[in-house]
C-alpha cells in the first residue's frame, strides 16, 4: 500500500490533504470533525486584529450547470469574524489534542510591521506548525488595504514575508492571489522575502450571476450585490496553470507549493502534485459534500499510486513539470487524427455538427442501410481533412467512442523556432 505521508517544509501530516483557510476551518468544532474524518491538516480560517470583522447576511453565489450543483462557487465573506483570543485558545487545544496533524494559522493584518510582530508572537504560543499569509482575499479586505491589495504588489509581498521570517521561527507560507497578470512576480517576491513556500490560488474576482428579477448580482444583500471570490471545480484549470508557471520559472523552481483551487478528487490532487505541489488544500468540495470526501481521496490516490508503482508521494511529485513547455517548442510535425469506433457510436451527430459548423468539416454525416429495409446514420472521419483538434473527442457524449490516434509521419521533431514557415525563424547558422 502506498505511503501517503507528506512532509511540507518540515510540517508533517499523515496525508497530503489539508483543508484550506475558509469556513471548514473556522473553529474548533469543525476542525475536530475534519480530523476525525481523516484530513491531514488544516489552515485555520484567517485571523485578523480585534475587533473582528462583521459579515453580511447572504454570502455565497454559485454556478450550477443543469443538475450539477456548484460547478463554481463564490463568496463575499471576510476573514474570521470571531475574537482573536478565542481562535487562539481553540488552535492551541486542537494542536495539543491532534499532534500528528498539521495546523497552520492563516493571518491578515494591516501592512505595518508592528501589527505583524504582535500577532506572530501570539500565534507562536499556540504551537501551531506554521503560518500562511493571506494576500489573496479579493473582496472586503482589499478595500481596507489588506488581502489582494497586498498580494498584487510584489514589493509588499516581499516586505511582509521578510517581517514574518524575522519575527517568528515558524515556517511561512505565502498565499497568492490569482488576480494578477503574471503569477510569477508575487511568487518571486515571496521567495525573495524568505518565505518557505507559496500556496495558490486564492479566489478569483467574480460575479457569479445576476438575479434578473432583482436586476442585481447574486448573492444579493438587500437588493445590491458585489463582486466576490470564485473557487470550486471551475477554477482548477486556472490554478493548475499558475502552479505550473511557478514550477517552471527558473527564479522559483523548487520553491515548495501548496496547491489550492477546485480540488475535490484524488485525481485533482495527483495532477497538482505531478505539477510539483507538495500537498493540496481543499475548500469548496468540502463545503459541498462535507468532510467525508477525504476517504475517497485517500483511497483513490493510494490505489492509483499502487497501480503505477509509486511508493511515496515524492516518487511522482513534479514528474509532469518537464513536459510543460512553451508553444513554440511543440513538435509541429506531430500529427494525430480522430477515429470513431462505429460499434460504440450511438449516432448522436454531435461530432459532425461541431466539426462541420465550427471546425474543419472533417466528419461526414452519412446514411447507410440498417439491414431492416431502412437507413441509419453513420458518422465517418474524413482523415484528409482532420487536423487533430480534439473538438469531436470532447463533444462526444460517450466515453471511448472517439480516440485521437497519433500518426506515423516519418518526420523528425521540428519546432516553430526551426520551422521554415516561420518568418521570424532563428537560423541555426546565425
Amino acid at each position, binding site marked *: 500500500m502506498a505511503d501517503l505521508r507528506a512532509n511540507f517544509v518540515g510540517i508533517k501530516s499523515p496525508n497530503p490533504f489539508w483543508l484550506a483557510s475558509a469556513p471548514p476551518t473556522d473553529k474548533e468544532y469543525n476542525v475536530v470533525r475534519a480530523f476525525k474524518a481523516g484530513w491531514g491538516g488544516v489552515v485555520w480560517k484567517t485571523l485578523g486584529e480585534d475587533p473582528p470583522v462583521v459579515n453580511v447576511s447572504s454570502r455565497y453565489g454559485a454556478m450550477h450547470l*443543469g*443538475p450539477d450543483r456548484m460547478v463554481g462557487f463564490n463568496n463575499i465573506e471576510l476573514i474570521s469574524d470571531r475574537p482573536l483570543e478565542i481562535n487562539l485558545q481553540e488552535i492551541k487545544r486542537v494542536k495539543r489534542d491532534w499532534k500528528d496533524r498539521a495546523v497552520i494559522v492563516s493571518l491578515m493584518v494591516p501592512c505595518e510591521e508592528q501589527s505583524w510582530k504582535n500577532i506572530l508572537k501570539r500565534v507562536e504560543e499556540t504551537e501551531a506548525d506554521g503560518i500562511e499569509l493571506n494576500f489573496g482575499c479579493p473582496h472586503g479586505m482589499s478595500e481596507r488595504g489588506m488581502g489582494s491589495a497586498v498580494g498584487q504588489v510584489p514589493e509588499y509581498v516581499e516586505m511582509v514575508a521578510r517581517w514574518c521570517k524575522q519575527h517568528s521561527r515558524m515556517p511561512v507560507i505565502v498565499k497568492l492571489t490569482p488576480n494578477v497578470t503574471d503569477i510569477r512576480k508575487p511568487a518571486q517576491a515571496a521567495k525573495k522575502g524568505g518565505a518557505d513556500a507559496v500556496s495558490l490560488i486564492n479566489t478569483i474576482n467574480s460575479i457569479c450571476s445576476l438575479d434578473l428579477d432583482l436586476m442585481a448580482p447574486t448573492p444579493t444583500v438587500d437588493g445590491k450585490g458585489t463582486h466576490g471570490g470564485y473557487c470550486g471545480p471551475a477554477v482548477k484549470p486556472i490554478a493548475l496553470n499558475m502552479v505550473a508557471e511557478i514550477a517552471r520559472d527558473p527564479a522559483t523552481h523548487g520553491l515548495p507549493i501548496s496547491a489550492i483551487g477546485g480540488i475535490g478528487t484524488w485525481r485533482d490532487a495527483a495532477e497538482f502534485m505531478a505539477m510539483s505541489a507538495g500537498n493540496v488544500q481543499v475548500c469548496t468540495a468540502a463545503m459541498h459534500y462535507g468532510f467525508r470526501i477525504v476517504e475517497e481521496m485517500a483511497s483513490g490516490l493510494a490505489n492509483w499510486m499502487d497501480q503505477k508503482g509509486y511508493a511515496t508521494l515524492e516518487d511522482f511529485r513534479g514528474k509532469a513539470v518537464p513536459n510543460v513547455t512553451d508553444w513554440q517548442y511543440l513538435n509541429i510535425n506531430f500529427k494525430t487524427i480522430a477515429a470513431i469506433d462505429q460499434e460504440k457510436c*450511438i*449516432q*448522436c*451527430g*454531435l461530432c*459532425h*455538427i461541431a466539426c462541420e459548423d465550427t471546425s474543419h468539416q472533417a466528419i461526414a*454525416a452519412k446514411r447507410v442501410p440498417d439491414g431492416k429495409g431502412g437507413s441509419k*446514420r453513420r458518422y465517418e472521419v474524413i482523415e484528409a481533412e482532420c487536423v487533430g483538434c480534439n473538438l469531436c473527442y470532447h463533444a462526444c*457524449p*460517450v466515453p471511448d467512442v472517439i480516440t485521437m490516434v497519433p500518426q506515423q509521419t516519418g518526420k523528425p521533431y521540428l519546432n516553430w523556432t526551426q520551422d521554415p514557415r516561420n518568418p521570424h525563424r532563428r537560423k541555426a547558422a546565425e
Partner: protein
Amino acid sequence: MREYTAPDIRAGRLTAAELAANFDDVKPPLDPKRALVESSRCFYCYDAPCIDACPTSIDIPSFIRSIATGDAIGAAETILEANIMGGMCARVCPVEILCEDACVRNHSEDKPVQIGALQRYATDALIAAGGQPFARAASSGKKVAVVGGGPAGLSAAHRLSRLGHEVTVFEAREKLGGLNEYGIAAYKTVHDFAQTEVAFILALGGITVRTGQALGRDITLEALRRDYDAVFLAMGLGGVNALGLEGENMAGVEDAVAYIARLRQAKDKASLQVGRKVVVIGGGNTAIDIAIQSKRLGAEDVTLVYRRGPENMSATHHEQEFAQVNGVRIKHWARPVKLHGHKGAVREIEFEYTQLDGQGRLTGTGETFGILCDTVFKAIGQKLNLALVKDPLNGKASEVLDMAGGKIAINEDFATSLKGIFAGGDCVASGTDLTVQSVADGRDAAMAIDAYLRGEG
C-alpha cells in the same frame, strides 16, 4: 351441459377511495427538479433520430433544451407548432415504439430520455399559463367544413384557422375531442384534460363548432360541398367488428369501446356495473384498456384472450406488461367459438386453441376450453361506419367516394376521389390508430387544403 346461475354484475365493487386511487394519473407529471434532471440527459443530438420517430416530427432536442434552460413556455411553443395536441400525445403516445424507442440513449445505457414526460411538463406549463401562442393569418375568405371533432378534425381546424380560413366543425356527439374524450383510458388523461385541450385549441378563434350534427343523419356531404370551399372528413372509426358468434346479443356481451365511453363520461365510477369474472377478446389498445379498467373497477378475474402470439398483438410490449402488472391474465393462441348463457345472459365462453398451418395461416387445433364469465368484452377492432359516408352520396351516383380496405382512400395530399373533399385520421386507409398520427394527418391535410384553396384562387 352444465347448470349456470345468474351472473354477478354490479356497481360499487370498490370504495370511493380505492376508485379514486385506481383512476388517478397513471404517470404523474414531472416536477421542476425532475424535469431539469431529465432534460439535462438529452444530448441535443444533431439530426436527432427521435424526431424521425415522432409522427408529427416535433423538434425534440430543441424543446428539451428550452426546458433545460428554464423556458418551458418556449418548449411548449416548439411542441405545439408541430403538434397542437402535444399535451394529449404526451399522455397517450406509446413512446416505447415511437420517439423514445429511437432515442440514442438506448444505445449507450438502455434508458431513453423521457421525451413524453418532458413534453407533458412543457405543454402543461403553457396551458396552465393560459393564452394562445398562435395567431390567425389575414382572412382568406374561404370556408372549410370539418366533419368529426377528434384529433384529426381539431388538428386540421386549428391549422386551417391559423392559415386564415373560416372553419366549421360538425361533430355527431355532444362533446368535442373524439376518442380523447370517449376512448382513451381514464387514468391516462385525468382532470378532464381532453376538454381543457379542446378549449385551448378553440381559443385561437375562427372555428365554429356544431355539436350533435352527424354527417348522414343531420347533414349531407352534398350540402357541405355546396356551402363550403372544401371539406375535411375525420370521422374516425365509429363501428365495431362483430365476433360472428351465435348469441352475440346476449346480455353481458359488450362492445368495449362503448363501455369505455360510458366509463369516461361517468361522474361517479362507483355507479358503473362491473362483472365479477370478465373475459376480453382482442389484442390491441382497446382490449388492454378495457381489461385494465375492468380490473381497476373491481372485477375479480380478468382474462384477455388473443388468437395469436404476444408479438402479433398491436398493443405494445409495454402495454401488455402493464396489463399483467394490473392482474390481467393474458392467454394467447385461442379464438372464441361458442357462447353459453343463462336466461339470456352470458355465463361461459368457449375457445378453440389456434396455431399456424404450413402456409402461415391461422387454424384451429380442434381442442377447446371454456372460461366462466359474467361479462365478455369485444375488442377486436373498429371499422368505418359506412352508412354515414356512403348514403349522403347516393344522391349523385355519378360520383363515388373511393374506399380501400373498408376505409376512405386518399392520395398523398389527403384528397379523396371527390374534388374538394379531403380525409385523414383513423377513417382513412393509411390510418395507424394512434392519436399522434391523426394529429399529423390533420395538420398535413390542412396544409394540402390550403394549397388547394389558394391554387384555385
